[in-house]
């Protein structure tokens, strides 16, 4: 009777032992000893946070604190936190995603009382990212719906950036004097020119860089980061544009609230805001950009989301998954292309 090979006799119990021990390995988050902050943010600021975290650790308030960052589409990240992902600090692309957490009891309703700009940590604007040299001569919203132009914009039902893009498009048309019906028709035209709808802003830019589309609608800060990296692109700021405002908050169930609050304070401080400016994000603290010797051009006809009635109204009217205008447009477009 052949004996079991001795290697196996040793290996199998050893494997079970190792796996038993490995079960005890804790993910070093959830406020374990050593000061870790769990940061859950939207997709774009991954690179920025790396630089900022390093600066933060050099301050007394930040000494010995590590920031564990999770980045993804804004809507998805909010869903994940609601589903239980550990989060001490949350930084989303837009207010409605923060409101989701307020409704779930994970963020205090007073989150917008923090900081110089009612809870916002950075601003930005929507830009058109095009290939280097701008071969299709895209300068304004009208060029996006020109014949033959292919647009990339993320999926509005998961990505914050996509919602900013479409809100900007609609608002731009209204600023140009069009009626709501005409502005809606523009959205329809824009979406019919869209050739890909990846799940996040970063994914959209990545898709664009692999060669899809002629223009991708994205955050200005994402464009700046890409150019700094040497990607062969340039960007255009349309004259009619929306002011993107990104909210930040410490969660109610933060495992490490002191460190978390110190971190947010740093992000909103003069030094922190200067660092954001260097990374390409428009600071919310007046004077910070100047102090960092960075100028951000102001679009001629800049408006905020309040021009369109505020996010609650916009979310309901445009982005409700069944009754929203965008949902209906996508459905209509689908039925005409589904036969293809």
């Amino acid at each position: 009777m052949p004996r079991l090979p001795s290697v196996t006799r040793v290996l199998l119990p050893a494997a079970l032992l190792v796996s038993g021990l490995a079960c005890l390995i804790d993910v070093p988050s959830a406020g374990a000893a050593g000061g870790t902050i769990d940061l859950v943010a939207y997709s774009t600021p991954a690179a920025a946070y790396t630089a900022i975290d390093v600066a933060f650790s050099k301050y007394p308030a930040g000494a010995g604190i590590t920031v564990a960052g999770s980045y993804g589409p804004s809507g998805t990240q909010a869903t994940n936190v609601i589903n239980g992902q550990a989060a001490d600090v949350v930084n989303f692309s837009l207010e409605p995603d923060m409101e989701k957490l307020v409704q779930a009891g994970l963020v205090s309703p007073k989150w917008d009382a923090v900081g110089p700009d009612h809870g916002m940590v950075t601003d930005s604007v929507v830009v058109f990212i095009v290939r280097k040299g701008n071969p299709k001569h895209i300068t304004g919203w009208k060029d996006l719906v020109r014949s033959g132009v292919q647009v990339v914009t993320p999926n509005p039902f998961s990505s914050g950036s996509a919602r900013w893009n479409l809100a900007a498009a609609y608002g731009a048309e209204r600023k140009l004097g069009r009626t709501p019906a005409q502005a809606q028709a523009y959205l329809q035209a824009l979406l019919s020119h869209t050739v890909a709808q990846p799940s996040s802003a970063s994914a959209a830019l990545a898709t664009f860089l692999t060669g899809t589309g002629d223009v991708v609608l994205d955050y200005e800060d994402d464009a700046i980061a890409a150019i700094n990296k040497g990607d062969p692109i340039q960007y255009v700021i349309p004259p009619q544009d929306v002011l993107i405002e990104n909210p930040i908050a410490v969660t109610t169930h933060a495992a490490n609230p002191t460190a978390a609050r110190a971190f947010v304070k740093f992000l909103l401080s003069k030094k922190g805001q200067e660092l954001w400016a260097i990374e390409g994000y428009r600071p919310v603290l007046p004077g910070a950009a100047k102090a960092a010797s960075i100028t951000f051009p102001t679009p001629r006809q800049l408006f905020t989301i309040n021009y369109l009635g505020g996010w609650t109204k916009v979310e309901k009217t445009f982005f409700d998954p069944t009754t929203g205008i965008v949902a209906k447009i996508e459905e209509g477009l689908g039925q005409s292309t589904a036969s293809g």
Partner: protein
Amino acid sequence: MRRLFGRFGLRTTVLAYLALLVIVPVGAIAYRAFAPGLGTAWHDLANPSGASSAGFFHALILTLVVAGIAVPFNAVFGVIAALVLARHRFPGARLLDAVIDLPVAVSPVVVGLSLVLVYGRAGWFGGWLAARGIQVIFSIPGIVMGSAFVSIPYVARAVLPVLQEIGTDQEQAAATLGAGPWQIFWRVTLPSIRWGLAYGVTLTTARVLGEFGALSVLAGNVVGHTQTLTLYVGYLFEGNLDTVGADVGAVILAVLALCVLAVVSLAGSEKGSPSWLSRFARSPRSSRTSSLSTTSL
């Protein structure tokens, strides 16, 4: 001669199909990963801008830890399930048989979703777990569970036909000689199934190393903490942090896959069976009928 031409034509077509579908794409990604040079490739993988430089190593360690837990658990389960199905007749045996195969038909995204629905904060056991401070989803246990779910069938399916083929004679003999159940298992059963077990474990490992869809839903993508290698590669590509780094990571995963294949084919060649996957393609019942059907010719 028409015959020769026919054979040549078929061979060419087949090779062309394989080239277009498998060989050339794999070669292309390897080329693209290493074209800028080996040093650049390594640098981009380990130090992509915007991600912690330790991200790759953490991902590698996490992947190995997850495999180190999920694979043994599934191996133990697979052997027990195979023994139960082969040796016992009980109501519900057919159901167990079917349920073991179920994970193959479930989309990875659905796997992630269903685990979140039970073990997530708002899930069935969520409250109970949260009250005890246990984090399953978005943490290592969740990743292990997702990886285990998708790879459940492989060991059971590899071991079951072996158990059925060898029958219970030796085990019964050992029992009448006075061996206890443990001894029978260790000294009689386990050695006789070791090749099937090895196949199953290798397939399970390959599947666990490659899991992506379920983890996209339930891992939480925390850089340096809950990203496996597959998630890390996806993150590099999707986050536009470094496509060269993503390519290099992809190539490394491909090499790992090839190593797994090499192990399997070495074990396979010893046993003389041309294809391990074919064992899995047949359920034990039909394997007997089809082998009988070929001999009836």
